[in-house]
């Protein structure tokens, strides 16, 4: 019970921040080793589809990494604001909105790749689209909560 209590709050926030940094490093590594990674994936995991297939996969990866960087930056900002106890602020709503659109962008890029060459990326399209929906709902909740907080702040 005590461990649970001690773990909540600051520690949980710290863990989330560490995870964001972990994924940032992972993303940088994927970008740096993109060419070799795609070669390895084609040779050992998803099957070789020639130069065009490799190019499509590489292009998809690099195109998706742009919204991924934006998402990680926004997650970092969200967690930093929460650390400062600024939870229901318009900056967080803007971050969530951007994250949602980034998910949509990833879904679109993967959809194109799925149609052109890699049908298995359709799963990523669905996952990213669903993630966009979840983040959007959370954004709507935050937006409503800000209105309610403003009302509460001005209640004497």
């Amino acid at each position, binding site marked *: 019970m005590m461990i649970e209590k001690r773990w909540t709050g600051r520690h949980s926030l710290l863990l989330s921040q560490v995870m964001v940094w972990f994924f940032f490093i992972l993303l940088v590594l994927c970008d740096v080793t993109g060419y070799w990674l795609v070669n390895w994936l084609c040779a050992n995991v998803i099957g070789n589809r020639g130069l065009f297939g490799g190019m499509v996969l590489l292009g998809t990866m690099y195109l998706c990494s742009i919204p991924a960087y934006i998402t990680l930056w926004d997650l970092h900002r969200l967690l930093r604001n929460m650390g400062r106890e600024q939870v229901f602020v318009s900056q967080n709503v803007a971050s969530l909105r951007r994250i949602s659109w980034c998910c949509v962008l990833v879904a679109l890029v993967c959809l194109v790749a799925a149609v052109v060459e890699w049908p298995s990326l359709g799963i990523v399209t669905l996952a990213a689209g669903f993630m966009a929906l979840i983040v959007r709902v959370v954004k709507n909740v935050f937006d409503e909560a800000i209105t309610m907080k*403003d*009302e509460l702040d*001005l*209640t*004497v």
Partner: protein
Amino acid sequence: MPIVVNLDVVMARRKIGAGELAEKIGITPANLSILKNQKARAVRFSTLEDLCRVLDCQPGDILEYVPEERE
């Protein structure tokens, strides 16, 4: 907003300062300032009760309905 807070007037009549009133009704001077400056969106009944008790007045002395002019 068509509800006007006449707290200034009642306070002046009772010759009581904002700091003293805030202390007596147990709210922060910042919140009292929100109320005085017509920025409040809502007033709790408990706050209204404390204001009426300390200022020895009726809610109607503090709050007034002034219809908005339609263009």
